[in-house]
């Protein structure tokens, strides 16, 4: 690393250039802005809070993947854990909370919006695959399982050494995070499990994540020797690096479950208010 003072440019310059990250970020943000404009013009503006949540989610995901932060994430265990906290929990959480799909769809060119996607050949495969992945017990299993998978010491070793595997790891963490948080944060009670079940899923995923985090934090031997093999970004005791990384794996993910449960409670409250109002609305319509 250069020891000259960091400037905005050096901080924002990606350590590794990932064309996929640039492409996906650009396309998504462009579609969203076009969609916002179009919806405002048709009298259905997107609320400020939703857009803010979307842009915060995209911005932090981009920041951990495509700035100098990625350098630290490759050469310090705790920075790697922070990167995955954003990739798997925070970034997808904010994006899913914004429920951006209708806005993104509105940003598509007119020709594409007119296509009946579900009638296209092969569409059933995607729809079916999506349904299977979003089967709640499987979704919960994948969400936690993918953390355990990439943190299995022998697998972690190759993921940090082989750049192709490293990209695969980061993409899989983000995409699975997005699937899971959309299953949980989808505001429609008709789509996906009931709000009560979602709370149970959120509680269930806390347990293995806490156990894993505690295991790493309290482990006295070095679990991930790849950071010694590749050299750390700066001199730090391996035990301290592992302990901080363990705490990051332990506490914040469990807190994300707690925060999501609060969101569920607000959804339930809103649902109750809607159902209390709807009989009156029905008589009014009649």
């Amino acid at each position, binding site marked *: *690393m*250069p*020891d000259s003072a960091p400037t905005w440019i050096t901080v924002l310059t990606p350590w590794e250039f990932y064309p996929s990250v640039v492409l996906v970020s650009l396309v998504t943000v462009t579609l969203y802005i076009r969609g916002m404009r179009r919806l405002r013009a048709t009298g259905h503006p997107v609320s400020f809070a939703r857009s803010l949540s979307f842009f915060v989610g995209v911005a932090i995901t981009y920041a951990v993947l495509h700035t100098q932060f990625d*350098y630290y994430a*490759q*050469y310090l265990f705790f920075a790697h854990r922070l990167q995955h906290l954003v990739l798997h929990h925070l970034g997808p959480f904010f994006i899913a909370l914004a429920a951006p799909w209708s806005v993104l769809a509105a940003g598509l060119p007119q020709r594409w919006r007119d296509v009946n996607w579900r009638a296209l050949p092969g569409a059933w495969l995607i729809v079916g695959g999506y349904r299977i992945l979003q089967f*709640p*017990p499987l979704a*919960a*299993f994948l969400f*936690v*399982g993918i953390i*355990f*998978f990439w*943190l*299995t*010491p*022998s697998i972690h*070793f*190759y993921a*940090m*050494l*082989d*750049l192709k595997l490293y990209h695969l790891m980061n993409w899989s963490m983000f995409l699975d995070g997005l699937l899971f948080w959309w299953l949980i944060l989808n505001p429609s009670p008709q789509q996906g499990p009931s709000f009560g*079940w979602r709370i*149970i899923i959120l509680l*269930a995923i806390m*347990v*293995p994540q806490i156990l*894993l985090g505690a295991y790493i934090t309290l482990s006295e031997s070095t679990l991930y*020797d790849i950071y*010694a*093999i*590749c*050299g*750390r*970004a*700066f*001199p*730090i005791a391996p035990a301290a690096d592992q302990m901080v990384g363990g705490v990051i794996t332990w506490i914040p993910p469990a807190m994300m479950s707690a925060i999501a449960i609060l969101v569920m409670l607000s959804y339930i409250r809103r649902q109750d208010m809607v159902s209390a109002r709807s009989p009156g609305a029905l008589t009014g319509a009649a």
Partner: protein
Amino acid sequence: MTAIRLVFIAIVLALTSACSQEPVEWSGTDISGMLPELKFSLQSENAAPVSEQDFTGKYNILFFGYTYCPDICPTTLARLKSALSKLEAAEQQRINILFVSVDPKRDAPEQLKAYTDAFGSEFIGLTGDMDALQTLTKRYRVAFGYGKPDETGAYEVSHSSAAFVFDADGKARLLLRDDLSADMIAKDLDQLLKS
């Protein structure tokens, strides 16, 4: 129904978290195809520009360190020397050990030469400016960094603890961790040279 599934999930997770295994044939780690072939442009211990082409045709063991290194570098170099001494003389002739100093501020070419010569003629010191070193370390997915200097100006340098073995064609073959014994390294090198 769902509750039973969740219990099942917990059990499977507990089982999958405990699996780890090493390749059988090598004590080191087979990195064929995982890292790019040997390529660099650095400075020799005689302050002359050198590249990988000056070393092709031989097996090269690349190791990153610095001469002020208190522990990992001298023990690793000593272990490599001991491993080489266990090989047949003809095999020893086919191996270079390239010691790349990532502390060019303190490691002038003559100092590097004195340091590597102490280990033997097959040990070759290399260094370069920050750009050249960073290009090389990034290529092999390793990092280095400097600690804060103390009152005497001494500082720690974090660097890779492993050695990378390249074959005569410059292809990356093995990664030797610092927990391997000289015997294990010798056996791996012997296997590699005979393959």
